[in-house]
């Protein structure tokens, strides 16, 4: 089980607000899973490289040039708040 402070710290890093009930719930759940994954420590991996799954013929360099998305208004339709072709946010600076 994780401590309340540990859960709050992770939530802060993950930018998640949690209710009191959720804090308790995640103390239990995260604690259980972290205990379970401890089993990996039994494996010696000092000489093991990390996995590679990307096909060898996949990655290739290309010219770095911007490709404008055609319709900005179309994108702004999904915005929670917008004004004059821009996303609207609460004031950041005083």
């Amino acid at each position, binding site marked *: 089980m994780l401590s309340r402070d540990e859960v709050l710290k992770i*939530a802060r890093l*993950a*930018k998640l607000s*949690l209710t009191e009930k959720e804090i308790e719930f995640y103390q239990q759940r995260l604690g259980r899973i972290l205990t379970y994954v401890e089993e990996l420590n039994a494996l010696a991996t000092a000489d*093991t490289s990390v996995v590679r799954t990307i096909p060898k013929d*996949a*990655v290739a360099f290309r010219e770095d040039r911007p490709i404008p998305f055609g*319709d900005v208004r179309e994108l702004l339709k999904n915005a929670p708040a917008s004004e004059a072709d821009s996303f609207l946010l*609460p004031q950041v600076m005083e």
Partner: protein
Amino acid sequence: MDFNRLEILDLLEGYQRKEFSPSEVAQSLLTSIEKKDGEIRSFLQVRPDVTLDAARAIEKRSSEIQKLPLYGVPIAIKDNILVTGWQATAASKILKNYVAPFTAMCVERLESAGALILGKTNLDEFAMGSSTENSGVAPTRNPWKTDRVPGGSSGGSAAAVAAGFAPASLGTDTGGSIRQPASLCGLVGVKPTYGRVSRFGLIAFASSLDQAGPLTRSVWDAARVLECMAGYGGKDATVSRSVVPKYTENLNESAFGTVRNLRVGICTSWLEGVDPEVRTAFEAAVEKLKELGMRPVEVELPNVKYALSTYYLVATSEASSNLARFDGVHYGYRTPNPKDLDDLYCRSRGEGFGPEVKLRIMLGTYALSAGYYDAYYGKANQVRRLIQQDFEAAFEKCDVIASPTSPTTAFKIGEKVSDPLTMYLSDIFTLPANLAGIPGISVPVGVDSAKLPIGMQLMGRHFDESTLFQVAYCYERRRGALANAPWRGSKSGAGA
């Protein structure tokens, strides 16, 4: 005519013989969705006018029917795959009302091949789950027995095909999310090799594991959909540039010659703890492979027992990074009246994501945080390599590896929600293929005493989907029609 039971191959033949038209098929399927999906809840969105317009448009191109390998074939799309003008919610409150401004590469390819978009299907929120009970909208029910889950996370896609609403659907598979629901719904489901299908336009869960693939009622149909949707499209740097084989070309009598003398690897120690009826059905299926002339060989996969731990560190770490984009700024849910920018982020995310998604984001954040990265994410990616090496060694001794797809048949809705680790264990046979990047296919092998379907998984070497399809095709021919399949019943869609 009962279109609910027709496979893609039947539709293509019927269109060629002018027995029926794409509009008639689309209209009939949309009507059955309207009448019967209230109980199953496989679809999150249908737009009959858009689908029927597309059907009429394709009919005008009937002279090109030979050049359009999916001419007039309606396909349901999981709601974490983008299609212009359609919603793409990932079954999450945080993306409620989000409308896709562009189309995923794999769907674009299907549409170019003549496919019609039938609707968007339900899933576990952000594809995180094994039962579709984590959907932020409602759980989907299994058409074989409606008190059971359809599996997940592509449970809506599986249920739609099993109910007879669609001949095929697309799912995504990060740890088994195509194969496990295919197994639980008596369907064929394919997780292609990592890098076979473009991930452009998929709502990312774990970028090093995610692949999109088909769910269908036959092996031939799955091969046809995959050969149309796969391949490099210029927008995903992890896709292979190699030519996509025409998988269906070899799915005929010649396949029986190819399959004879192939070696099928079986890892007996992996079968411990499997439901006895599943095990019996799996062993009977292996007997059928032997009848086809295949030779069983014992293989060792010593590190697959660590797949679950490895998966939960890799997938959650990548998810915590991928899901950082949902911040209430550019799209999606925003909390009302935030007091400042940080409050906007935290409350939009806290209120917008469901409990399982928050759990995984936090687990991933923890695994990636300072001081823990090497111990968790780094370690997990090394164990992943060990698992990959296990498969490399096994494929020295065999051509395909067979296992059950899921350790149990479809469980009851609500049965496993309270214990995440038990739920996670339903993916033990499917996780390793994602971790190793290899392809896997699930084929139905029969039903248990409760008349619920059982699936066998075949895994292959990287980019060797062809062999998987040929073995699965021959097996399917040998097996014959599945008894009691809901899409074939008189009350298709309603289940038992």
